[in-house]
């Protein structure tokens, strides 16, 4: 490992030692913005035509490139916007803040420039998927609720953790191994409605990037993926609004300038309203003794963001998220209230030291909490859990010359894990019957440095290292996480890529099921529970086919160490000694992902196919035999098409097919005769974990978007059908004993498959002004 650190440091200092030459060099830097709203744009390609080199805007919309003095043509290109070219005479440092626009003839939601593949082919970054709100909004969705996270599930290597779920599984990793950040604050439970919708309101989201491998050094803390969600900043040009009325919820977003072109605000909220209907039904049937009350359920969330340019070199941002789910059932005998939700806050300061050096200082606050209050006769129970983080970090972006881009930074975070609060009381007693409150205070500190080095016009290297550490309950862990990536261009339109990453995960989700439930508890590493660790290698090829198509193929292999599961019969709920329920093992995941995307024209979309295997092996599970996790998928196909017929009509469709979930089936039964006063019972015996397969899953969703242009602005009606051919996909399978009609005695045992969603049409009205 010492040798590795030495090589890495040598790599960094190379830019300082050899990056200079005698030719005078100057920098061009600035921001690239959406011309209509003034929003900063992430990932815009800035290409110097004469030098055949370039850069991209960072996550804050800033770019910087240092090149020899001369006359150049800069080409700015970005998905959905017109190319913009600018001729410059470079004889001093220049600041060029550019606003990109959309041409009148470009009616397709996803418009790309002729060079739209350039970044994908030339970048060392691989294993990354990016979704914009525009893409997510036209695709058909469950109940018409646009969900940008679910759209990611249509990319190769990414699958859902369950029917209709917003939980994702990336390259065989667990649903808890995804780092999900919203404006740099961690979101610990990114789900509403027991996982059926993500916490991200698409109206408030600007951009989502999913890293499946080749993780940049600034990210760490989870083994399998990073989902980086950025909120809109708000329109800096004019006051604007957007919203929608759907089957499940309504949304409203307002945005506008604080000071024109210097600052803006954005406020976005949504709320579901099924509870209004169920309450009315409950009230109308209150006198019916045979009527069972319907539980109340609703969720809401609110996103806010402010930003302001103090001057050309200093910008400040503040953003926040607050969301809650509320589930309740109350009658005379039994009361049950269940609330859960996230809160995040981010405050950022962007500072430009000089055209080559940019910094971002951030403070974030993250909080997730769930509370259950239940009352049954004279007994009351309260159960709760949560996690709260305070995090400060600073990141630097340094572009010393056009061959080198360097990032480095450090962060410090404090975590408060409230693993389990439980109190049981009886009305006749003053003191609680049982009481438990287990909490931990932990800190982590991380530092990283990474450099992208363009060796020549064919070869580009990216090397980095991340030092991570975690302290909890007197136990200190530290890890060195090397990151390496390379790109070699065979031709202008073909490049080979490879990457290696190591990731540590110091906190773990105690989840007893494949579904994401709000009662899942985050648990820190300690003396017993060591950090999880993964090493992933990936290699691939990216091919630009003409101006319209991008074809990529990637193979990957991931080793997962110190994986966590739970012993058989584990008691995970209200357990102050969760450590004792854990068992530890290892895993491997490997596969191949093919992806073909059509980016331009009236018909756009993509086809993805993943062939993969995922294994786990625990000495204490299934007799030590290796087994597949529930979400192992041998084949996974997704086809996504968007066809803009004309200015008013767009047809969309997506079809997915995947191998059925791995699951356990019983082989045998036995009779337990029991002790005095207890009747005999039948025991079900499962010989191995997840040794069988559910039937394959496939589903077609179709949508029709009708746009119209009222006086106030723009509106559309989106009609979609989820599961258009009404496939009965398996949600779960159970066994039922059927009795003889005459004798009433058990006659046979039948397997029953239960599906969750039939064909579900929905209509959503969206507007913009």
């Amino acid at each position, binding site marked *: 490992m010492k040798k590795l650190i030495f090589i890495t440091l040598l790599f960094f200092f190379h830019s300082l030692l050899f990056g200079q030459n005698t030719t005078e060099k100057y920098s061009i830097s600035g921001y690239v913005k959406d011309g209509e709203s003034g929003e900063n744009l992430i990932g815009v390609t800035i290409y110097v035509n004469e030098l055949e080199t370039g850069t991209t805007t960072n996550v804050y919309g800033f770019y910087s490139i240092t090149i020899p003095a001369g006359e150049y043509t800069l080409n700015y290109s970005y998905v959905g916007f017109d190319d913009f070219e600018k001729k410059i005479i470079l004889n001093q440092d220049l600041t060029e803040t550019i606003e990109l626009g959309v041409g009148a003839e470009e009616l397709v939601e996803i418009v790309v420039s002729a060079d739209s593949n350039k970044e994908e082919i030339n970048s060392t970054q691989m294993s990354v998927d990016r979704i914009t709100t525009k893409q997510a909004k036209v695709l058909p969705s469950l109940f018409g609720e646009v969900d940008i996270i679910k759209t990611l599930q249509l990319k190769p290597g990414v699958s859902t953790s369950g029917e209709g779920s917003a939980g994702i599984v990336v390259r065989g990793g667990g649903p808890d191994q995804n780092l999900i950040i919203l404006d740099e604050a961690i979101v610990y439970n990114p789900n509403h409605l027991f996982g059926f919708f993500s916490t991200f309101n698409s109206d408030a989201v600007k951009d989502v990037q999913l890293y499946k491998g080749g993780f940049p050094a600034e990210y760490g803390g989870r083994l399998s993926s990073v989902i980086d969600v950025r909120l809109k900043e708000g329109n800096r040009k004019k006051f604007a609004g957007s919203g929608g009325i759907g089957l499940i919820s309504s949304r409203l977003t307002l945005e506008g300038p604080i000071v024109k072109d210097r600052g803006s605000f954005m406020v976005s909220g949504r709320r579901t309203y099924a509870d209004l209907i169920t309450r009315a039904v409950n009230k109308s049937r209150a006198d019916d003794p045979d009527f069972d009350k319907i*539980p109340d*359920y609703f969720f809401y969330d609110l996103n806010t963001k402010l930003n302001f340019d103090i001057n050309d070199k200093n910008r400040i941002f503040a953003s926040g998220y607050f969301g809650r789910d509320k*589930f309740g059932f109350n009658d005379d*005998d039994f009361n*049950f209230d*269940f609330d859960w939700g996230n809160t995040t806050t981010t405050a950022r300061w962007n500072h430009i030291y000089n055209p080559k050096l940019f910094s971002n200082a951030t403070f974030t606050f993250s909080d997730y909490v769930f509370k259950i209050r239940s009352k*049954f*006769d*004279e*007994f009351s129970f309260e159960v709760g859990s949560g996690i709260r983080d305070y995090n400060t970090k600073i990141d630097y972006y340094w572009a010393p010359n056009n061959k080198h881009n360097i990032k480095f930074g450090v962060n410090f975070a404090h975590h408060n894990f409230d693993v389990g609060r*439980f109190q049981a009381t009886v009305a*006749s007693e003053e003191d609680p*019957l*049982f009481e438990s409150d287990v909490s931990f205070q932990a800190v982590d500190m991380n530092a990283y440095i990474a450099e992208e080095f363009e060796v020549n016009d064919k070869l580009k290297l990216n090397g980095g290292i991340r030092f991570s550490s975690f302290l909890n309950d007197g136990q200190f862990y530290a890890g060195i996480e090397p990151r390496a990536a390379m790109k070699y261009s065979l031709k202008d339109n073909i490049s080979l890529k490879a990457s290696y990453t190591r990731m540590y995960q110091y906190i773990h989700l105690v989840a007893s*099921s*494949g*579904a994401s*439930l709000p009662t899942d508890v985050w648990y820190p590493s300690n003396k017993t529970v060591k950090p999880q660790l993964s090493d992933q290698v990936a290699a691939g090829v990216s091919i630009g086919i003409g101006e319209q198509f991008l074809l990529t193929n990637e193979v990957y292999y991931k080793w997962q160490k110190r994986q966590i599961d739970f012993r*058989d*019969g584990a*008691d995970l*709920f209200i357990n102050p000694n969760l450590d004792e329920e854990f068992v530890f093992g290892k895993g491997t995941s490997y596969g191949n992902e093919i992806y073909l995307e059509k980016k331009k024209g009236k018909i756009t979309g993509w086809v993805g196919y993943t062939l993969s295997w995922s294994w786990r092996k625990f000495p204490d599970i*299934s007799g030590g035999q290796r087994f597949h996790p529930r979400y192992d998928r041998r084949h996974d196909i997704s086809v996504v098409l968007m066809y803009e017929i004309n200015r008013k009509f767009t047809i969309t469709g997506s079809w997915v097919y995947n191998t059925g979930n791995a699951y*356990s089936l*019983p*082989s045998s*039964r*036995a*009779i*337990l*005769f*029991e*002790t*005095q*006063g*207890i*009747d005999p*019972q039948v*025991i*079900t*015996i*499962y*010989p*191995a*974990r997840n*040794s*069988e397969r559910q039937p394959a899953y496939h589903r077609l969703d179709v949508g029709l978007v009708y746009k119209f242009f009222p006086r106030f602005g723009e509106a559309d009606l989106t009609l979609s059908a989820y599961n258009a051919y009404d496939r009965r996909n398996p*949600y*779960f399978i159970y*066994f039922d004993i059927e009795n003889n009609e005459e004798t009433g005695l058990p006659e*046979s*045992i*039948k*397997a*029953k*498959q*239960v*599906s*969750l969603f*039939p064909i579900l049409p929905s209509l959503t009205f969206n507007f913009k002004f």
Partner: protein
Amino acid sequence: MPKFNIYFILFLFSLTACNLEKDIEVELPPHDPKLVVECYLEVGKPYRLVLSETIPFDVIPTTLPTVDGAIVVISYNGTNDTLSNGLFIDPVAEKFFNYGSSTIVPEDFVNTYTLSITDSTGRNVTASTKILPIVPIDSVVYNFNDTDTLASIQTWFTDLPAQDNFYRHTLHKGSLDNNPDQVFALDDRVFDGDDVVFGTGFDYVIGDTIITAIYHIDLAYHDFLETVEAASDSNGNPFAQPSFILSNIENGIGIFTGLTFDRDTIYITQ
């Protein structure tokens, strides 16, 4: 937690009103017949044991799958006691056994009992256990609700301090002939060394006879009961990971354990 899951499943089904269930054919994993043992050593009572075997999951048995003709030996304190094969009935417990002997289980909480069974086909299973001391019930009380007609029952006992203890609680109404109103196993992690109460809802009326019991059980029996319940609960629960039965019967399944309990009976009066 199970209650929460039930509400969630009900909620999911309320989302759609369509018939989303159908019969399917599944190929079950191969059945490997294993010996099933149940033997509870109760102080002052003779050795009794039920030996049966597993059956294929999809077969409805027409007779009890008991196994006869096996050599069943319980060893204690240097003495091997071979149980005879036959029909043994405990008229109090209303249970039958197919192996037994006249040896009475002594009050010994120190020494280990071992079990060895070899059946006629050569299958061999072994197990060992100790008998735990009784944890007495401190009191059984009942409280009426506001109407003064419905009562809830509280069974109080004191957890043994400074050690991992496991308990099973049963509560019957009327007699032990019926299945209990309450039965569950738990450990003492939440209430180590404290006074502990098991309570009921306001489900009982004046004149009811309540039989409540606290069993002091060992870890193996606790884990066995928990995993049996988890395996049973996983049928039809999309959120449960099917549990494998944790058993202290080596090469088989079942339980070989001591059975110590304190039982109290109360009559609800005005």
